[in-house]
């Protein structure tokens, strides 16, 4: 068995991992190793061939592969080492990693680790989808991978359950490839993807979006033959009289994303139930010293631009940790979501420097203020014309305004 010691190991070669590695190297960390289980860098961006990425970061709209390539080019320019087709089997609190690649098994002891494993899709099992189990049921991302990377068309007549962005993007993609997309059904009374995707992916192609509606039964023995859908009441129970049958050979599920935190839990990192990611401070360090987290494994983002930005922070902070060790923190300020805010990240800050809180609201709303309160005083406030659970919000807080507070409350008013 090979054994090696490395300064910084980044787990995951998607947009978060690449940007974290680049930032760490630029911040002076000489020894950065990135581990990626796929045979190429770029992660999910490789199959996201639609455009709309990079508007914040580059001021232009790029496709996923182009957005990835810009970062991969910089990664290569900086001569950062990547192990591809390599998987991390286990991680310990002592920052020991068991790694498996074609060459065999390697044990790596890292000075610091950045978790950038991204997220995976919720599947039919997660929602106890009723009915038979025929072929033709895919998560939207799996269908996207087959169509866009493997040249395999998944079906001819599709129904999409869930109005997440990937589902809507796939409604358009399947239509462009000649399939008939019957409709998108969403259990909630509001769509869970971006407004622009409702317009450009559904309305443009006359694909109906049915809210407060779900699939109540799957039909078919070998191949899917159809689904039964029904509207739901205020308690999300199907209304019998609204049931109808829709013939289809394909059902795509776009019903949410789960941060892929198996390694994180295994190492004993404290988790935040609201994000399903690690609890972190404003340096994005988890409760275990030297282990950092960023991107969709920390909390699910809707824009990759913010994933890259967050990952750069993690990279810079990991490099600083390796150089200077833990900062002398005299106090910890807890950040608590209240009044209409579902989660706020980071969950704690040192209060010694300015920081940005990322958050999601619980319900859609209009003309409200995001506010941060310390000891009952407003210390940051931002007006929002529109708020939506599908859209991550961010608010900046100045350290000088904390004024000894032990807890900050992030809420709506």
């Amino acid at each position, binding site marked *: 068995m090979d054994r090696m010691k490395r300064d910084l190991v980044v787990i995951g070669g998607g947009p978060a991992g690449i940007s974290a590695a680049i930032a760490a190297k630029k911040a002076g960390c000489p020894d950065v190793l990135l581990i990626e289980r796929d045979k190429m860098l770029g992660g999910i961006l490789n199959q996201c*061939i639609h455009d*709309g990425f990079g508007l914040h970061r580059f001021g232009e709209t790029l496709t996923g592969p182009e957005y990835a390539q810009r970062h991969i080019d910089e990664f290569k320019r900086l001569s950062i080492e*990547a192990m*591809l087709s390599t998987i991390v089997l286990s991680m310990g609190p002592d920052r020991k990693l068991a790694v498996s690649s074609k060459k065999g098994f390697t044990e790596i002891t890292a000075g610091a680790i950045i978790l950038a494993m991204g997220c995976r899709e919720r599947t039919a099992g997660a929602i106890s989808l009723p009915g038979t189990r025929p072929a033709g049921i895919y998560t939207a991302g799996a269908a996207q991978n087959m169509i866009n990377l493997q*040249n395999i068309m998944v079906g001819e007549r599709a129904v999409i359950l869930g109005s997440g962005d990937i589902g809507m993007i796939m409604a358009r993609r399947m239509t*462009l490839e000649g399939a008939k997309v019957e409709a998108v059904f969403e259990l909630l009374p509001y769509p869970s993807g971006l407004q*622009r995707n*409702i317009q450009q992916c559904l309305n*443009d192609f006359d694909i109906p979006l049915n809210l407060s509606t779900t699939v109540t039964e799957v039909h078919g023995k070998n191949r899917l033959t159809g689904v039964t859908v029904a509207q739901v009441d205020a308690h999300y129970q199907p209304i019998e009289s609204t049931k109808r049958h829709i013939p289809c050979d394909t059902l795509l599920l776009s019903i949410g994303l789960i941060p892929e935190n198996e390694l994180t839990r295994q190492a004993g990192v404290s988790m935040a139930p609201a994000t399903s990611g690690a609890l972190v401070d404003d340096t994005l360090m988890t409760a275990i010293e030297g282990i950092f987290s960023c991107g969709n494994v920390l909390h699910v983002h809707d824009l990759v631009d913010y994933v890259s930005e967050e990952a750069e922070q993690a990279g810079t902070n990991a490099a600083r940790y390796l150089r200077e060790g833990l900062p002398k923190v005299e106090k910890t300020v807890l950040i608590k979501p209240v009044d209409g805010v579902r989660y706020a990240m980071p969950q704690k800050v040192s209060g010694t420097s300015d920081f940005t809180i990322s958050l999601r609201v619980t319900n859609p709303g209009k003309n409200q203020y995001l506010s941060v309160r310390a000891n009952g005083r407003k210390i940051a406030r931002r007006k929002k014309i529109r708020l939506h659970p599908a859209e991550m919000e961010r608010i900046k807080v100045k350290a000088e305004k904390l004024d000894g507070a032990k807890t900050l409350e992030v809420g709506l008013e």
Partner: protein
Amino acid sequence: MKTRKLICIVCPNGCELTAEIITGETLAVGEVTGSLCDKGPVWAKQEIVSPMRTIASSILVKGGDYPLVSVRTDSAIPREMIQTVMAVIKDKSISAPVEIGDVLIPNPAGTSCNIIATRHVNVAGIRDQGSGIRN
């Protein structure tokens, strides 16, 4: 005054725009409100007169390390031309290698856009050289 509501697709903000429609001999658009930036009104005026869209798809690659190269239009095309341009893209196949940014189909179906590659596809079996990336 007639108005029309639109969701702006220029960026992820997805502003809800309200445009004044001036009905005369030709369709004209007056004031556009509800936009967080100055791109919204420009887009709304175009959208009402003649909607334009970009599209992304993929083209078959022979002899490449991947079976497909992802592609996009390098400028917007009239929305009603989407399926016509898609038919041209579907008919096309090319040989590896392909470089990101390569023009693979100039002016498909008489439009003023080009179809460009959005990723590299190497010839099958050739390793990525000099990158420090190892398998």
